[in-house]
């Protein structure tokens, strides 16, 4: 309670005394879009900061911006899947290992078994979606915590990678390499197929979450499971579907990652679930579920990607600063979220 009053006085103290402006500030603080706006502003500020610092090194070129999508397309897809799960109030820890498994699975089928890529892609997506479905089924029907079930999923898929092969399989298939090298020109710069797929997935997720019945159900369940059940929403079906979507997105992210890196490795994408969850949180989705925007996730991914490229441009900074910066950002955004939810309760 005391924290709430403090934020209010602080907000009023900052804004000039006219009541209209004070209420604008209050409305802004209570606005659910605030975290997304803050993330977008942060992204802009970082981009402008990078622009002024590394202008002579070509930071200002549009291609640097487009590279954010090319280099983080897989993360974007995985984070979109994680957004669905987190929005519904759950959590999916199996993202990273499912990505690793998909790279391994496709590499093995294409290289060792000689199957055509066009057959392998739907197969891999199907396996991913089925894995998600199974986890959702267990979570809902046996009422085991999502944390534990997806943790078992993490072990299972990472283990299956190792069962396929302990060594990495590089992919020399001509279809894969030609797909990986295809660039679509946008006038200012170019995008890879992976980046375009990621943007399509983002658009689809945006439509589904905001304009379909399923999306509403996801929000409702995340907001309050009990009320959603009492309203007659199909709780189990939606929950299972959410995990299926996450599994599908993870598998798709795995395919994009495979395209990006052109190999399958049992150690690919270790810990990527943390990146995905961090991107979702930085993007302003509440971890308790029920509130957030998939566009925020886009900005979350872009911010994480920008940290990586700034560290690359800086040159002298070591890779572990990425982790530290991610942690600090995560902390800042969690505190912002906290201030917001405390405010909304009053």
């Amino acid at each position, binding site marked *: 309670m005391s924290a709430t009053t403090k934020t209010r006085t602080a907000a009023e103290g900052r804004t000039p005394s006219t009541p209209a402006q004070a209420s604008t500030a209050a409305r802004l603080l209570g606005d659910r879009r605030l975290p997304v706006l803050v993330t977008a502003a942060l992204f802009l500020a970082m981009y402008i900061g990078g622009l002024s610092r590394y202008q002579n090194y070509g930071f200002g070129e549009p291609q640097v911006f487009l590279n954010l999508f090319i280099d983080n397309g897989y993360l974007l897809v995985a984070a979109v899947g994680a957004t669905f799960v987190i929005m519904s109030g759950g959590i999916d820890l199996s993202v990273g290992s499912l990505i690793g498994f998909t790279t391994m699975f496709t590499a093995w089928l294409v290289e060792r078994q000689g199957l055509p890529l066009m057959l392998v892609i739907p197969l891999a997506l199907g396996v991913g979606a089925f894995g998600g479905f199974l986890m959702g089924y267990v979570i*809902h029907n046996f*009422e*085991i915590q999502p944390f534990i079930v997806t943790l078992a999923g993490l072990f*299972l898929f*990472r283990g299956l990678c190792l069962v396929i092969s302990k060594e990495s399989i590089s992919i020399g298939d001509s279809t894969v390499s030609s797909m990986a090298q295809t660039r679509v020109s946008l006038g200012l710069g170019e995008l890879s197929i992976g980046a375009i797929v990621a943007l399509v997935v983002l658009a689809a997720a945006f439509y589904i979450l905001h304009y379909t019945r399923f999306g509403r159900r996801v929000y409702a369940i995340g907001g309050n499971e009990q009320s959603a059940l009492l309203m007659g929403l199909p709780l189990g079906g939606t929950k299972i579907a959410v995990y299926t979507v996450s599994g599908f997105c993870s598998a798709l992210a795995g395919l994009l990652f495979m395209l990006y890196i052109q190999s399958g490795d049992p150690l690919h994408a270790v810990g990527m679930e*943390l990146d995905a969850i961090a991107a979702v949180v930085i993007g302003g989705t509440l971890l308790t579920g029920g509130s957030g925007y998939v566009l925020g996730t886009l900005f979350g991914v872009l911010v994480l990607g920008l940290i990586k490229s700034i560290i690359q441009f800086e040159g002298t900074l070591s890779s572990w600063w990425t982790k530290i910066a991610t*942690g600090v950002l995560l902390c800042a955004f969690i*505190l912002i979220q906290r201030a917001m939810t405390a405010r909304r309760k009053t």
Partner: protein
Amino acid sequence: MSTPAVTTPSRWRALTRHHLFWPVAVLIALLLVNVPFTPDFFAIRMTDGHLYGSLVSIVLFGSPLILVAVGMTLVIATGGIDLSVGAVVAITGALTCSYISDQADQNALAGVFLAMGIGLVAAVVCGLWNGFLVARMGIQPIIATLIIMVAGRGVAQLITDGQIITINSEPYKLIGGGYWLTLPFSIFVVAAVVAVTVALTRRTALGLLVESVGGNAEASRLVGIRSRRIKIMVYMFCALCAGIAGLMISSNTSAADGNNAGLWIELDAILAVVIGGTSLLGGRFSIGGTVIGALVIQTLTTTIYTIGVPTQTNLVFKAVVVIVVCLLQSPKFRAKVFGAKGRARTTAPAEPTTPADAAPKMEVSR
């Protein structure tokens, strides 16, 4: 005539109802699986004044996990979770080893103690930060501890400068790899920590307070329990346990690896706690169960090696065991699978819930 027939099942039921029944049963089953493959599995022999044997090595290699899991139990009992323990393990090991490696005489006792002190203080500070975020700021525990989980590994790498620091210190080696009174020294450390924890939680009111905070933090605050202080204490204790485990791991290998030390130990620890029968919802805990849970996980790893399952299937095996154990512990699963038998025996109030809950599920699965 009929009396023994009645009492035997009721005794059996009392036994199966005991909260440690399933964990112990799984542990014994796992241990017995080893016997056909290694007939002398339970043998313990004396070499050079040290005890050797599979059982000793299970406890030895399992001791960091037991420590972390015991700390985690208390955190989970308050309804929280601590994902940062792996990072805390790495930070503690990194700080201690980098301090020792800067010493002129790495065998000097004072330097080693100081180094360990620094490491443990850093661990407790991490715990204080987690506790502050959870208790004062009211942030969800999963998220609050995620911060240190992500940033902590970076910090550990920063301390070791991205290198693996190797040290050569006899006294430090004792904690994780040394022997004392024919037994590995780490067993004594674990025993001491577990004994202190059990004494503090079961012989004082502390355990009750922890459970009441986990049951309902707001209600316990209204009753007059300082629930925030309890929460902060619990996170600090968990980090301290993780710190000791970090000392053990780095001492066992005589090296600090910011990247890999304690990797995934938080997941193993949470599993150990769950297998031990502590509910993730909080409000109830069992230190004994957690110790058994941690031993189950370590035995599982050892079993995978001894029965000759290819090591790459280790994780798949683990996943399957986790799922089976969790399913066995899920009341819903038991009601469904053993429902036919259970329904006849179970008391009346349990009955209506089972079909009612099962009905919507059937629609769902279609």
